[in-house]
């Protein structure tokens, strides 16, 4: 059974304090690893899709990386507006349906 585990569940940072969110996955024949940002009361907003180990993608202060067992979302010098829940999901080779993690709730204090 495919599994995606995100850690930590919650993270509090000071503005400018860089950190990383972890997404560990057990997905057979990974076809894609996805990161979304979700603001309270809103739908998830697509950030990145990673396809193979070693791949990296960047957007503003966010950088996503992928290994054979986990993905990291690195946040460099975060700002309060980066506060959100970040969701990770993995899609296996034999499925139409991604497996989602429970998310990491990030709060960045000014």
């Amino acid at each position: 059974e495919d599994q995606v585990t995100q850690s930590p569940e919650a993270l509090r940072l000071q503005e400018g304090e860089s950190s990383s969110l972890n997404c560990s996955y057990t997905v057979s024949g990974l076809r894609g690893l996805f990161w979304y940002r979700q603001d309270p009361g809103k739908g998830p907003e697509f950030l990145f899709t990673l396809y193979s180990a070693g791949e990296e993608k960047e957007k503003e202060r966010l950088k996503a990386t992928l290994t054979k067992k986990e993905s990291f979302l690195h946040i460099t010098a975060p700002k309060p507006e980066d506060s959100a829940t970040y969701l990770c999901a993995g899609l296996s080779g034999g499925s139409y349906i991604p497996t989602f993690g429970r998310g990491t709730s990030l709060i960045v204090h000014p």
Partner: protein
Amino acid sequence: DVKVTQSSRYLVKRTGEKVFLECVQDMDHENMFWYRQDPGLGLRLIYFSYDVKMKEKGDIPEGYSVSREKKERFSLILESASTNQTSMYLCASRVLGRETQYFGPGTRLLVL
């Protein structure tokens, strides 16, 4: 630009009412999905549709049905709303053969 819209942001219904939630995408995507999201439980798949008039049950289809008569529109129906269906409902769509799903803004449903 990707655009998935949902008919309502907030909805309040009474127990026993029939409830329709509508999702529309303008990207000509074949695949569409309905999820519910609850605190501590994450995203759970209710139904998905490969293409027009095609549907498959997800993990929690009980108490729900769906309709996909046109490619751009995927409706979720609560046949007889119950309080345990109070939740955030999220629609998503995806191009056939591509991996990335795009989500709508969500409908927060309260059943009294």
